[in-house]
């Protein structure tokens, strides 16, 4: 499913974190978002996942859903999920429970009468194995290392089985082994025709993974295009050097 935004705007006390932005993210593609620190990348992700309400603009999902506001508890139903730049895991819960909690029943009454079903556990095993955390399933999440936390965040979004995925700097601070796991996840999502949005500072990874690159600067769209082309543009290089 595609997601399109029109004239999306968000101000924080006069600072235009996202300014009149119009963009489209397509299924079966990885769209990279780059831009200097504070250019509004995370804010954009927050707006599109209901974490922060937007001031103005529209969000269009697929061909027939048009939204002028988006609440956090609605985004999952629209098929949108995300990771957080600073991991927001359920710290005082086990690794396994962090996955099970997004796999099991959403309906309150059903949730009351189940613990988890066999297929939930199987699914959790599959996901945690994929990111190399199955051995850690009974560990308290607060005790995980930085990299393991990032991987658990990725596994948690996969558990959502969404159509649209936002990854906010999933590679930051990871060792190469872990980078391989996460890029594998992204490529796999792309192959299965999901819409993948990747916020990232590492240009090598952007070049390697993304089909389209969006460059933000001060909340505005600086440019958009194919990675090799965009990354060599003068204004992009300048925006980064200007940091």
């Amino acid at each position, binding site marked *: 499913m595609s997601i399109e935004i029109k004239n999306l705007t968000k101000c924080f006390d006069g600072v235009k974190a996202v300014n009149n932005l119009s963009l489209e993210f397509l299924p079966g593609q990885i769209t990279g978002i780059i831009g200097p620190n504070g250019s509004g990348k995370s804010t954009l992700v927050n707006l599109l996942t209901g*974490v922060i309400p937007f001031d103005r603009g529209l969000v269009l999902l697929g061909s027939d859903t048009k939204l002028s506001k988006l609440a956090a508890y609605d985004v999952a139903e629209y098929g949108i999920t995300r990771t957080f730049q600073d991991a927001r895991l359920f710290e005082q819960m086990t690794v396994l429970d962090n996955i099970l909690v997004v796999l099991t*029943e959403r309906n309150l009454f059903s949730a009351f009468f189940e613990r988890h079903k066999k297929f939930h556990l199987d699914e959790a095993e599959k996901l945690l194995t994929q990111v190399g955390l199955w051995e850690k399933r009974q560990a308290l999440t607060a005790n995980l290392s930085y990299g393991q936390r990032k991987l658990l965040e990725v596994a948690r979004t996969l558990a959502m089985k969404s159509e649209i995925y936002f990854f906010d700097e999933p590679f930051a601070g990871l060792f190469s082994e872990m980078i391989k796991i996460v890029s594998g996840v992204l490529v796999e999502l792309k192959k299965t025709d999901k819409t993948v949005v990747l916020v990232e500072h590492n240009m090598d990874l952007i070049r390697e993974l993304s089909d389209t690159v969006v460059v933000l600067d001060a909340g505005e769209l600086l440019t958009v295009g194919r990675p090799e082309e965009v990354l060599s543009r003068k204004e992009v290089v300048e925006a980064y050097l200007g940091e």
Partner: protein
Amino acid sequence: MDYFIHLAILIGIYSILGVSLNLVVGYTGLLSVTHAAFYGLGAYVVAILLTAYGWAFWPALLVAIIFTGLVAFLIGLVLSRFAGDYYALGSFGFNIIVFSIFLNWQSVTRGPLGIPGIARPEIFGVSFGDNLMFLGLVVLLALLIYLAAEYIAHSSFGRVLKAIREDEQAIQVFGYRTAYYKLTVFALGAMMAAVAGGLFAVYITFIDPSSFNLMESIFVLAIIILGGLANNKGAVLGAVFLILLPEVLRFVGFPSDVAAQLRQVVYGLLLIVLMVYRPQGLVGEYKL
């Protein structure tokens, strides 16, 4: 001997209060300071139905549970607009409101005079007038509530409660309407407290508003903080500990009136020491 039975009954009643508040505070992370209001509602509904209308204990308890659940639902609805410290303050306010209703709605509650002459229950011809028999009833109900709390804590529902405690907005992003979960657990906790209230009313056979003031809510909070949040065994352990504490003080030689007064001071000190050296309580898995 009869005194030990008395203490055991109190431990049973406060275990129910601790276990039920733990669902709200320990598992869901909602710092509620209004539990004594629900405890009191349970006690008053049972007392009034028994004395003024001649009802039997079980139907009266059932009505008390349902009524308290409804009131808790409404209070929870208002509280759902608050978070963090404001939540605690708001819940604090509701305890005071309910307490003043007990105190001032004299035509129904008899105000500060209290309601005397509440009969001990009789079930299938078996009288619970005898304290040992009554202890059996308290243990049975406390056990049922303990098991219910354990069940809730380990269900998918309970897992969502913990996630709400950890990061409410994050779990919303993953598709949960957390307001419903918070309301449900708040009402369930209140309904359990109503059971404790009903038992208390027929045990003491006399109730007045002073048993359900803010201090009582704080006492129950102390029980679960001491025992350890998000651990049902901890809630029971905390109840045992805090009920027996004044007895221990007396035992080591304090005169009983001093022991009674010292109680509050020791509770306070204990909590402070605990917060500094062991914020997760005796067996808790979560710290405030």
